[in-house]
């Protein structure tokens, strides 16, 4: 049973024939039918001895080869029977199929090289912020789009995430930030855009600033206003003026 995968080195009868032709150093346009047939049958017999399922295509080709071989063994009477002249030599038909197949077999090899090279290029996932949220109207997507996207994702490398930080230095205190925010707001006299309070986009900074704003709101030290849903938030000093 184990053989099955491994002996399956040939992609079919044409592939096997190409192999034999190369191995025997035969001219593809002048195939010695008897010899190639014997070799071919030897291989097919070996597969059968190994109790492999020999695909029906191999057997069909075997039958074709045997027919060609027996015909080639018939006495040569072509000089008398002119009508055979127009008929194609079955070897030509076979050679044509082999050459056609060989073209794509080689193209497959070049594609494989491109594929391998491509695996050396890495990208990153699209940023969540880029994702359009205003989507309406009829969809024109196919299952192939989805599979393609999925495939793209599988090619992306996920790099090992560093172990999450253990102890972090207490450099930023909410209290200190509350103090600076209040000063900033008092100094500006008019309301400040919420976003402008955050002058760093580092996560730790943002968290501390945000907590400071919440704490100031809770203590009524500042007032936050918004004109409408999704409009910008404005923050002003004040609230408990007392």
């Amino acid at each position, binding site marked *: 049973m184990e053989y099955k995968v491994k002996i399956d080195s040939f992609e079919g009868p044409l592939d096997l024939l190409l192999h034999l032709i190369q191995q025997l150093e035969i001219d593809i346009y002048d195939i010695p039918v008897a010899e190639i047939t014997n070799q071919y049958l030897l291989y097919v017999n070996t597969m059968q001895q190994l109790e492999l399922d020999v695909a029906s295509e191999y057997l069909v080709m075997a039958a074709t080869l045997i027919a060609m071989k027996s015909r080639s063994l018939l006495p040569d009477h072509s000089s008398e029977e002119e009508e055979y002249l127009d008929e194609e030599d079955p070897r030509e038909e076979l050679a044509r199929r082999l050459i056609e197949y060989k073209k794509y077999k080689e193209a497959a090899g070049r594609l494989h090289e491109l594929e391998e090279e491509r695996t050396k290029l890495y990208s990153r996932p699209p940023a*969540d912020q880029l*994702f*359009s949220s*205003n*989507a309406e109207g009829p969809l024109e*997507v196919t*299952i192939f789009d989805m*599979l393609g*996207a999925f495939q793209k994702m599988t090619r992306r490398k996920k790099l090992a995430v560093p172990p999450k930080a253990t102890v972090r230095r207490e450099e930023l205190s909410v209290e200190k930030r509350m103090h600076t925010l209040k000063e900033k707001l008092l100094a500006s006299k008019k309301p400040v855009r919420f976003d402008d309070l955050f002058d760093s986009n580092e996560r730790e900074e943002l968290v501390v600033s945000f907590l400071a704003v919440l704490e100031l709101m809770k203590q009524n030290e500042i007032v936050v206003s918004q004109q409408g849903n999704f409009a910008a938030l404005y923050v002003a000093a004040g609230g408990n003026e007392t």
Partner: protein
Amino acid sequence: MKNESIIESLLFAAGDEGLTAGQLSSVLRIEIEEVREILQSMAEAIEQDEKRGVMITTFGDEYRLMTKKENAAFIEQLAEKPSPKTLSQAALETLAIIAYNQPVTRIEVEDIRGVKTERPIATLSARGLIEEAGRADAPGRPILYVTTAEFLDAFQLQSLSDLPPLEEGDVSMQQEADLFFGRFEEALDE
């Protein structure tokens, strides 16, 4: 020279999660102090180069590439552009993960994608392609998502069993689990 190029490659591929100087040092096989110096000088050079659109940020010991703040408005604009007829790569990925693994939580989707997935999930919900289906029996009782009848309709499937089988090597969670156990066993063998 070479090290700077490798560091940029690594930070880029690491995405939003970033890498520590320690990780970079182990890959580059140079001292961690040297890594920090290189990162420092790279960060300065990139910051000053007005042709560059990214910058290196530090959060704790994690280094990350991010887009420069002054270009934020352009990124927003791009996000605003309506593309009503198709779904973005992010949405399609998310949808595929949900379709093949449902019911599934957002965290599980994010584990597979490697990025936050709130927005794609919101849009897929708004589009009626996915819906909530109860909560997982896990800490925090996270919401479970499944695909809808509209999903089948949009992709012209009669039922979920019509989804084309995924190839091996594709990321379904089962396969990832198998992979994990495979590696685990390998490790034990050594």
